[in-house]
């Protein structure tokens, strides 16, 4: 499928979703849908770095909160329309991703992951001590009842923005996947040393990935304060964002754009249901258990399972020499096995 066709399909699906949301006229569904869409953006953004290049970011909440607090700051300093705030928040979070990557990406992957954990706590401490944006007491954002688009309530307007962001992130993820950039990312993920030796500019590519990934996370956070109406550091920097952003691609499958989408829609909806029917603590426990279960049992997620059972070429992705030796035993009999 070509890119333009993909863009068309995504836009049509998004339009259909929005039309359905308007027709249903249910505030709860709109709220739940917004949360799921927000996770689609976060999971896709996480996957651009984590799934494509193999660098684990534990600091999704930090980037998300930077986006959210950028819009709180702008709201207090000089109020702008939400789409502009989204762009500014994306720029700030992207810059943060770039700086973060520049400091730590020359080291082994594990250090990057640990540093992202550290980043979340440092930024949370800064925000707690920064009274202009509310400090630890949090900040209220009063949203107007009517949105700038005639006929839409403000909530519907924000829903539309998040829907557009979700569509944009999916289009970007797929475009990256099919481009030179995506092949470079995949080379880094599979064997960074070999990629470097073959002339792939690994540091530059990794910096591009952290920047894009961070920018999308920040953009997902920007409408959040207006949507909820109130924001405080403990919830904006909450671990659930980080866990979900990792669990959703892992459960869906990390190697393609479809994985995070599937994971976010499934897990996001499941959580909305579990929060209402059971309790919010139990629903987080479910996410944790699913994450651990999937990484152990189905390392390539739902997409991987699908490919294994229904795919045309059933070559599973396995980098280890031991298991590829046993797997290629069956594959070697057929002469055309595209492994690269």
């Amino acid at each position: 499928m070509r890119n333009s066709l993909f863009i068309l399909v995504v836009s049509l699906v998004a339009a259909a979703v929005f039309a359905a949301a308007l027709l249903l006229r249910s505030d709860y569904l709109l709220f739940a849908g917004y949360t799921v869409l927000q996770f689609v953006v976060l999971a896709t953004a996480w996957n651009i770095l984590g799934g494509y290049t193999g660098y684990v970011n534990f600091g999704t909440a930090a980037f998300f909160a930077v986006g959210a607090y950028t819009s709180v700051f702008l709201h207090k300093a000089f109020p702008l329309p939400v789409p502009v705030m989204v762009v500014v928040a994306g720029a700030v979070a992207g810059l943060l991703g770039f700086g973060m990557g520049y400091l730590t990406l020359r080291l082994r992957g594990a250090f990057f992951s640990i540093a992202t954990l550290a980043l979340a706590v440092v930024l949370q401490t800064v925000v707690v001590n920064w009274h202009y944006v509310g400090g630890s007491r949090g900040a209220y954002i009063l949203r107007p009842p009517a949105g700038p688009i005639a006929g839409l309530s403000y909530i519907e307007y924000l829903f539309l923005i998040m829907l557009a962001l979700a569509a944009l992130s999916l289009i970007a993820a797929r475009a990256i996947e099919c481009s030179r950039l995506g092949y470079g990312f995949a080379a880094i993920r599979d064997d960074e040393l070999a990629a470097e030796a073959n002339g792939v500019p690994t540091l530059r590519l990794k910096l591009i990935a952290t920047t894009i990934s961070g920018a999308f996370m920040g953009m997902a956070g920007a409408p959040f304060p207006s949507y909820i109406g109130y924001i405080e550091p403990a919830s904006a920097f909450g671990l659930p964002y980080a866990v979900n952003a990792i669990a959703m691609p892992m459960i869906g499958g990390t190697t393609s754009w479809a994985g995070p989408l599937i994971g976010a829609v499934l897990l996001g909806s499941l959580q909305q249901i579990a929060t209402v029917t059971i309790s919010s603590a139990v629903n987080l426990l479910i996410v944790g258990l699913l994450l651990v279960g999937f990484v152990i049992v189905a390392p390539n997620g739902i997409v991987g399972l699908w490919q294994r059972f229904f795919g045309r070429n059933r070559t599973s992705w396995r980098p280890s020499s031991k298991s590829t030796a046993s797997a290629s035993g069956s594959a070697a009999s057929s002469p055309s096995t595209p492994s690269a």
Partner: protein
Amino acid sequence: MVELDLVLNALLAGLLLGGFYAAVTVGISISFGILDIVNIAHPAFIILGSYVAYLANAAFGIDPIVVGVLALPLFYVLGAAIYQIYYLSFEQRGQDSLRGLAFFFGLLFITEVGLILAFGVDYRYVQAVYMDRSLDLGIVQIPLRMLVPCLVSLLMLAVLQLLLTKTFVGRAVMAVAQDQLALQLMACDPVRIRRIAFAASIATCAMAGAFLIVIQPIEPSIGREYIGRVFAICVLGGLGSLPGTLIGAMLLGVVESLTATFYGPSWAPAVGFGLLLITLAVRPAGLFGR
């Protein structure tokens, strides 16, 4: 003008805190520093240790540190079990980097949420004879609730260092970090050695958890603050060296204590993480690295 006794008290409190941090970090120095297993769930197991100490103390009135010692075998078995899952699912398949990290992140999350479900988010504390006393040395006061964990922690570090350098298994643990193949040629199963070492690293959580609940009241999500601290200390001390860990821990303890004294305790959590970020950016091999 800064008052001298304020500085002295802060310095001393920092050193005592550092002794405790060494106990918190020594497990990571073994698992991350020596075995190269990025066990970010380590602090969550420390909190688990605190709750074990809390339960035994509340039910039977046993001294929390004694509970820590008694719980060592329990945590050792837990560690061995976790390593076995980790080995079979990730190391053996050769995909330990990305998915292994996600695995430990999931464990961290499950432990934390599980503790919240079981105990709620109320702060818990323990009773012991030395809790409310302190040594008064004129210009400085040493609270026993800081001194006792610090001393026991130093003892634990000394024992571990002896085990690592003098016993066969300990030396095999050091060797497994350097050359697994050579270890196999010595008729020594590297997987078994790694399992022992990882189990020992989790076992230290029983002690560290007991120290933690003696020093401060705890609630389940407190462990997250320690992720940055332990990795900062571990990196500062130059991955996998116990004396380095001790020095790194003392350094962080002093810096944090001074920050809390002069800028207010709300900035203290950022110190460890900030130090970690700076170390990673400037000197990733640690203070004494090659």
